[in-house]
């Protein structure tokens, strides 16, 4: 009986909440306010339960632990084998091989049969956290890569396609010598481009062209590709940013082991973000030029020539719509921030390819415009959805990366 009375006091006080105030006081035959509260404390003391999180919280905490403990081994992998493959599904399994270094086994596939299988070793803390080393070995296959011919004025109707498989071993070392701003990068890649027939709905490339009319048709060169980049990078993060810029020059050497298809390439890239009204809007600009140079009369195969892959450059055009020895891409975006996680963007793209570098002018560029949403975190953009319009129609793009 005494216990029941105590429970009653506790129930009253805890429910009414007015533990120290007048409303609850009248309920009990206590001699003082202090005694009344002590009765309630005694009641609770007799019904104590271990403190524990609710089911939902426990579940969320368990997931958080998995993510933060380094024990999250399986992950989604959205990267296509090659642009133009369409919607990609994939998965990876990663695990740490030391305190900071990890290895990742991953693969992806598309409905059109594009496949990628690779293993990456990643060491992100070299040179006292100034450098990152990535070594990737893998194999990929693209079954239907668009080819519309060479030059700026090709027709959409002249679409052909080709396929290739490529085993590759790739190493990349990137270093910020002063931890920020200045960046240098060196790449080494050994790979074989086994060009073959395309399996797309358009004619395969060899049914339309011959080696005489299309350089490198049927070639399967083995490249030793080395490149060096020097740049200035003031962006807080590459995956998502509202300010800062990047200016860099990359020099490539593609050495064909048979000395038939070797060439050099120089890329020039500039990115700048201009925040307006405390990042209510961001004006973002991107310029990217690729120039190639033949190497002692060797042929630059058509499938290695600069082009526009589609989803992040000329967004209203088919992937690989333009291709030639040199290319120029200009992009501008007016981004509006909705909140910390979503932004909208109006964009404009202009692209041009040319056989001669001197022809990379602003005349005759293919252009498009569009609108899109980006779902982002502080440093990454997991989802980008854009509708682009050009003179060849509309294209709806989905991407798991920042456009630039």
């Amino acid at each position: 009986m005494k216990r029941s009375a105590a429970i009653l006091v506790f129930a009253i006080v805890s429910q009414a909440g007015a533990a120290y105030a007048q409303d609850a006081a009248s309920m009990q035959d206590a001699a003082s306010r202090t005694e009344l509260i002590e009765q309630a404390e005694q009641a609770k003391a007799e019904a104590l339960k271990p403190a524990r999180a609710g089911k939902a919280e426990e579940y969320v905490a368990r997931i958080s632990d998995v993510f933060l403990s380094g024990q999250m081994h399986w992950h989604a992998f959205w990267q296509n084998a090659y642009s133009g493959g369409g919607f990609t599904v994939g998965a990876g399994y990663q695990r740490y091989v030391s305190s900071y270094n990890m290895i990742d086994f991953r693969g992806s596939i598309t409905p059109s049969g594009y496949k990628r299988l690779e293993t990456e070793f990643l060491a992100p803390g070299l040179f006292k956290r100034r450098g990152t080393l990535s070594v990737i070995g893998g194999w990929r296959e693209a079954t239907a890569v668009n080819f519309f011919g060479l030059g700026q004025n090709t027709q959409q109707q002249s679409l052909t396609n080709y396929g290739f498989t490529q085993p590759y071993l790739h190493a990349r070392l990137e270093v910020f010598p002063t931890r920020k701003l200045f960046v240098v990068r060196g790449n080494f890649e050994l790979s074989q481009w086994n060009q073959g027939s395309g399996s797309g709905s358009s004619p395969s490339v060899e049914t339309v062209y011959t080696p005489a009319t299309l350089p490198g048709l049927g070639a399967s060169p083995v490249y030793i590709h080395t490149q060096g980049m020097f740049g200035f990078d003031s962006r807080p993060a590459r995956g998502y940013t509202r300010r800062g810029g990047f200016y860099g020059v990359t020099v490539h050497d593609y050495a064909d082991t048979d000395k038939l298809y070797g060439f050099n390439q120089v890329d020039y890239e500039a990115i700048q973000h201009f925040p307006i009204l405390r990042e209510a809007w961001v004006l973002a600009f991107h310029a990217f030029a690729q120039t190639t140079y033949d190497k002692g009369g060797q042929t630059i195969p058509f499938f290695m020539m600069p082009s526009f892959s589609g989803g992040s450059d000329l967004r209203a055009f088919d992937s690989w719509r333009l291709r030639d020895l040199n290319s120029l891409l200009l992009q501008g975006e007016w981004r509006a921030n909705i909140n910390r996680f979503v932004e909208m963007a109006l964009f404009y793209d202009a692209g041009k390819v040319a056989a001669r570098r001197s022809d990379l002018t602003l005349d005759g560029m293919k252009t498009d415009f569009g609108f899109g949403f980006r779902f982002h975190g502080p440093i990454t953009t997991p989802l980008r959805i854009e509708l682009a319009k050009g003179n060849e129609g509309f294209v709806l793009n989905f991407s798991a990366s920042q456009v630039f």
Partner: protein
Amino acid sequence: MRRQLAFLLLLTGIGAVAAVSTAGRKFYDDDPITRAPESRSAADAKPLDIDLFYEYSYNLFVNASRTPSNTRAGNLNTIDEVPDSSWFTNRIGTVPVTAEQIARGVNSDTLPSPEKWTLLREKSSGTNPGFTAKDANGQIWFLQFDAPEFPEASTGAVEVATKLFWALGYNMVETFITRVEPARVEIDPKATVRRPSGARTPFTRDDIDRVAERAARSPDGTFRASAGRLLPGKVLGPFRYQGTRSDDPNDLVPHERRRELRALRVFGAWTNLVDWKAANTLDTLVEENGRSIVKHYLQDVGSTFGMANNLHEWDMGWEHYYDGPATKRRFFSYGFALSPWQTVPYTEYPSIGLFEGERFDPTTWKPQTPVAAYTELRADDAFWAARRVMAFTDDLIRAAVHTGAYSDAAAEAHLAAVLIKRRDAIGRAYLPAINPIVNPTLGVNGQLTFENAAVASGFAEAPTMYRAAWSRFDNATGASTPIGRTESATTSLSAPSGLPVTTGAFVEVDISADSASHPTWQQPLRTHFRRTAGGWKLVGLERLPDQAGAGAAPTPTASKERP
């Protein structure tokens, strides 16, 4: 078991109803209590962590859309005050507090001894780099450094805010500004670091370098650090801003109904404590008066002033991490519907951050995520809190700010000036919002005197008339018998004839004010006085009853913003 549960539920239901419907003795002889009893041992309380991601999600998507219950705070004594407890100690606004006391705060005479630091563990939470370390005297401290872009900022903010919140009444951690010289740092042989791989491996010199790379280094090569002393007792983890601990018998009042926790919305607005979350609190089990009790602390209050945000997060204090109305507005206008934070002018000091007082409106201030105590703030809670903020004189504020040891005198002056402006904005917003009559006394001769907190602070014109409705009050039954009404243009009113004179008698006085610009002042302040041998003693004061339609406190989910 099921039957027992049903019985408990029934009792609970009966209790909830009975508490508001049954008349009976209203006041006890020891009313108003000044200290809440904590009479039972909490020795069985066990540590419990609170998941940050869950808390953020719950706050943003449940609390943010929750309708405030408009329930009176549950831990008040009978005169609408918060008694001292393991949560709170009445200091400024209740007792005189000097500049020297504020500058000292909770700190003891035992400062950190920086001649040698022995690192014990890495800092596992928060954005600023740091360590747990033992000083030359063997005392354990939590060291936290400034980010390179903001030298003195985080350490200064922790120091100043700790002093302010201590003066406001909270249990705080002893915090000092100290120095760490890398050459005098040793690593405890047992010290380990949790790596990204999840493994714990021995602490190395490279780990020190890793932290040092993220910390602001002084020209002499040392690092300025904020040192928080290890609290005594057993650490139980953070407390929640809603519900109670089921393993603490003395924790009776749901935390969202504790006035001192609701009041953090006002104190947080004043100091821009945007990182208001469970993780920045701590419960410890300590021995007091031979009994184990749970003591509740605020800790890591360095996310204050402009320091929760970097220089590119202007919306801190203006919007939650996710703010639905603001999102819609920007979406439909393509960002042209500007929010106030996009145009408010800031005087930027690296050691202070984005902190301003010109456009500050405490009623629209928002932390990163809204805890339940934030949404439950009522106008009477805000009034109580505003009086405490207003109790800080300019000199007291400057004394607290000076403890930040800012090397830039202009930055120090700026911080003090902004705090003074924000203090006044809080007083202006909350003191006139409801009946602001305070400190009523009833003289033995029947003269009722009081003060008007809003008028005294200069935030409102004096009302044209004060009115008092007098009744005899039967403490046994709760019945009131009218005696009469009096009025006065001043803060002194005479009682009508017929006031009881016997010791132990009670009188109820409802005091209201006529003010054309403040119609809420007509809601009477209900007071009760008990006749004692020495005269009349105030035993009851109720500024707003339950479900009173509080009015002054903003609806937390409303996206009310300044033009």
